[in-house]
């Protein structure tokens, strides 16, 4: 809560805020003048038989209202100056946080809901809060000044219930905040379930499970509805406080009427007092109740959650070493996914020469991708070292390029997508890489390098081809293919792998035996131990690799290749 309030306050830029407040001042005028003008118009004018004086007082009220209206218009205009930069900042925080968390391998669930729904709630409630707190202050000050000028004794009857209502309102904020918090959490859960379900629409249709899946989202929606109803009690409490603070002064003033009349307060003055309560204090308190009780809490809780969810470890600023070769070396490399987990890699020693092609094979879940992550500096070894050309892997960003199984293709032109790692590439270089990995047909089909891509409409294989062309164009001499061709047919895979072998050092996380047979050396990961060597040597030493190969050759024996 505090964090959100501080963020909101810090977002207020001095210039626009000053203009915003300056334009608020005229709005106090009608609030301060209304009761006085009516009291004087009645007591000194219409009741005293001098309608001209009465009209003059009314003209003064109209002038005050005009000034107030002009101010109000300006205030709304200035509001955009405050809220839009605030929302811009918020969108930045959400996007930045989601990306930083995602790239650090942390949970980033609900980021889309935060971006589209909650950032909007924060923006709207921020605007509402600014307007309402401001007009409460303006109107209260105006009304109290007006009351004091009409009949000071009236204040003693009006202020106590008003302040009581106000206090009740402020005291209920904690309870209200907890309910609001539950509501926001429900919203996030709903978005997460909806996102995972809708992303699987095809699968659910095929499984005949759409009714079941819709029910899962429906249950989340119902839970959210329950949280929303629980929130209604908060609103009810607010209505009660408003009754005390708004209607209380009214009744007190009326009950005290005879007492006030006896002390020389005129009927007009009492009417003026009532006017200040009815047209000043009561609506102001109502507006504040609305603002704090709904918008304010909504603001604090939503923004607090937004900021918390965007927390990410500071983007590690590795000393990136430019240039360099692509020889890979690991010494005693050990890694586990947690203090109590069994190590995925244990004491691995590996030396890869410049231009060498290494295949990493093993059953799934054995740690092949972990090794790729370590070589590419995405993971930090638990023990031991990984270096590329003698440079710590985490600092050798310019020397390697990783092509993961899940290709990153974004809305933009094909050329932008392919030149992602090499923004300065020429058209000729671009074409060369497209041809090298065998993406020419795809590029032509999509309408050439300048065609704009819609990633959702591409197949997994098409996405992989684009990612391969991109990595091929990268200036980094070491390429790590982490099952990057799994959605391509073997012919396309062989072509792509060949292209990478020609351009520098290559590590292939293999999911087909073919990748292993084409490599200079093979690293077999088998849980307990790793076997490294030339193909024949590994065949001799690794039963697992024989299994993999035997399986492959078994196929070749049925249908001997010509």
């Amino acid at each position, binding site marked *: 809560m505090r964090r959100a309030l501080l963020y909101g306050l810090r977002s207020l830029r001095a210039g626009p805020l000053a203009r915003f407040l300056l334009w608020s001042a005229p709005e106090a005028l009608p609030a301060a003048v209304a009761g006085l003008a009516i009291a004087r118009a009645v007591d000194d004018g219409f009741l005293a038989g001098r309608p001209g004086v009465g009209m003059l007082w009314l003209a003064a009220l109209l002038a005050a209202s005009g000034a107030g209206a002009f101010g109000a218009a300006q205030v709304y205009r200035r509001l955009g100056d405050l809220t839009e*930069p605030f929302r811009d900042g918020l969108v930045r925080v959400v996007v930045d946080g989601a990306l930083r968390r995602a790239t*650090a391998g942390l949970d980033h669930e609900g980021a889309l809901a935060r971006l589209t729904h909650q950032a909007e709630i924060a923006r709207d409630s921020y605007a509402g809060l600014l307007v309402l707190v401001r007009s409460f202050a303006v109107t209260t000050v105006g009304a109290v000044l007006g009351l004091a000028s009409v009949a000071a004794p009236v204040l003693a009857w009006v202020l106590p219930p008003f302040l009581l209502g106000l206090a009740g309102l402020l005291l209920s904020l904690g309870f209200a905040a907890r309910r609001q918090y539950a509501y926001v959490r429900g919203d996030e859960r709903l978005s997460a379930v909806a996102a995972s379900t809708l992303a699987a629409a095809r699968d659910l249709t095929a499984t005949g499970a759409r009714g079941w899946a819709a029910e899962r989202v429906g249950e989340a929606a119902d839970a959210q509805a329950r949280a929303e109803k629980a929130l209604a009690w908060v609103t009810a409490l607010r209505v009660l406080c408003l009754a005390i603070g708004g209607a209380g002064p009214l009744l007190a003033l*009326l009950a005290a009427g005879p007492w006030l009349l006896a002390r020389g307060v005129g009927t007009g003055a009492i009417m003026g007092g009532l006017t200040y309560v009815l047209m000043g204090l009561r609506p102001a308190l109502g507006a504040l109740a609305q603002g704090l009780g709904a918008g304010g809490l909504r603001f604090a809780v939503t923004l607090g959650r937004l900021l918390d969810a965007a927390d990410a470890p500071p983007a590690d600023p590795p000393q990136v070493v430019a240039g360099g070769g692509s020889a890979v070396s690991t010494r005693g490399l050990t890694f586990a996914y947690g203090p109590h987990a069994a190590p995925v890699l244990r004491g691995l020693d590996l030396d890869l020469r410049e231009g060498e092609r290494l295949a990493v094979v093993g059953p*799934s879940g054995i740690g092949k991708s972990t090794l790729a992550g370590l070589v590419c500096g995405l993971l930090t070894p638990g023990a031991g070292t990984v270096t590329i050309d003698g440079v710590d892997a985490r600092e050798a960003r310019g020397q*390697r390029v990783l092509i993961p199984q899940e290709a990153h293709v974004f809305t933009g032109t094909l050329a932008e997508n392919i030149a992602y790692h090499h923004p300065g590439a020429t058209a000729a270089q671009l074409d060369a890489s497209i041809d090298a990995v065998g993406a020419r047909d795809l590029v032509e089909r999509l309408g050439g390098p300048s065609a704009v891509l819609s990633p959702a409409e591409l197949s997994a294989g098409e996405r992989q081809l684009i990612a391969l062309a991109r990595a091929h164009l990268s200036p980094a001499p070491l390429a790590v293919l982490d099952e990057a061709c799994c959605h391509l047919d073997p012919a396309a895979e062989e072509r792509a792998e060949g292209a990478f072998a020609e351009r520098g050092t290559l590590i292939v996380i293999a999911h087909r035996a073919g990748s292993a047979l084409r490599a200079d050396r093979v690293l077999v990961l088998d849980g307990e131990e790793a076997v490294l060597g030339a193909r024949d040597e590994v065949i001799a030493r690794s039963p697992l690799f024989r299994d993999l190969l035997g399986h492959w050759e078994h196929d070749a024996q049925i249908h001997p290749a010509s």
Partner: protein
Amino acid sequence: MREAIPRRGRWRLPVIGLCALAGTGVSLALPAVLGRVVDALGDRSLLFLAALLIAGGVAVDLLDVYLSAGFLADATASLRRGIVSHLLALPPSGTARFGTGDLVARVSGNAAEAAGAAPQIVGLIASAVPPLGSLVLLALIDVWLAAAFLVGVTAIVLVLRTYTRRTTEAVAGYQRVQGEIAGLLAESLTGARTIAAAGTADRERERVLGPLPELHRHGRLTWRVLSATGAKAAVAGPLALVAVLAVAGWALSRHRITPGELFAAAQYAAQGAGLGGLTGLLGGLARARAATGRVREVLDAPAFEHGDAVLPAAPGRLELRGATVTGVLTDVDLDLPGGSLTAVAGRSGSGKSTLAALCARLRDPDEGAVLLDGVPLPELTEDALRAAIGCAFERPVPVGATVAEAIACGRGIDVTAAARAADVHDWATRLPERYDTPLDEAPRSGGETQRLGLARAWPAGRLLVLDDAMSSVDTVTELRIGRALTRDHGGRTRLVVTHRAQTAARADRVVWLDDGRVRAVAPHAELWAEADYRAVFGS
């Protein structure tokens, strides 16, 4: 906006209307009573009446809050259910067209806004009553007061007319840009590993935030529209009040009305001026209209139609007759005997996945027909269709709270048997809570995800379609699954799209697709003689 009103709890809407009406009654009666109190200060019974009115107003308010919240909550939930159900009933290509990020925005944000439409209309009507009531009551005090008031109110109404349309436009533009940013972010989150390795998170952020200045522009526009209208309303309101006060003062000096009546007239005029408060409601309504449009766009997308036929007792013979998907598949005729194992092979882009989608009825052919045991797939009931045919994908998306749920998907199937067949049982038992491990906390590789998807599809009754569903599975594991497939004791028809020669070799026959046409249907061993066929497998 009718779809935004849920069937359950619809009774609340008229009651909310009544509450609003009663609240209106209180606010109309109160000034008159207060005026009387002012004229006869010290009259206890009048004071008591005023207190009663105020208390009644509070009670009505409370009821209104309670009912409105309930209605809004239920309406939102029911709308969300409706949207999701409908989305899942679309052909898969229909859902893919929107993009997940955009759809979530519709389910999460837009549904809530659209559900607010009905109460907002009620609120709007209720807020429109006091000015009208005030007019009548003013006329009862003095006809000229009503005339003065009418002039003021007319001015306000004219001002407000332009508001809704302009705001709807501004808000629609705003929501569109917002959806764009969400879509871009979703793309980047999918590519997190590439971004992390390339260290391009900063660039990604700037790319995702590219449309932000446009959002800023649309955002400012909404405030400008609000400010222009608000200013006019703020001038028109007091004008009505002062006009009424002037007429009332003149009448008071002639002793035609009492000071209390002047006071009441001022209150009525203020209530009329409260019409300016409608701007907020109109803004909400404009937003609800834009959101309703986005919701309707989803609900209007045509859903998959299903027939009412069930399957005859038969072994699961699959026929394609002249099946054509424009630009992808041309005139495909196939007749696969029940219980047979058929492989589909062909180069990337030859139409294999589309063929699989046709057989699993994830889409319908543009021309031609697909029949299971003689029944065209669109004539089957949805239950019969999905119980008979299962489909596993190269990129399955598991759904469910736990691993067991992700396999069962609410069907009463033998989870363990399916998991064993798909060779994912060992993986599941190594998890902390075995099959009850939350899906989010069950780390898995691409191959394990594929096997999970295969386990989900395994219980199919007559036809099992595998669309490259083992491309990420290592070969040793694939061999084991392949054996289970070959020995399938369920006697089901199996159609396996594959890039692997050994998978094709195990099949009874191979459908060789080339550029959207069936080039040959024959056993693998026969086809292997052709160099073009071997090239498909990279040999």
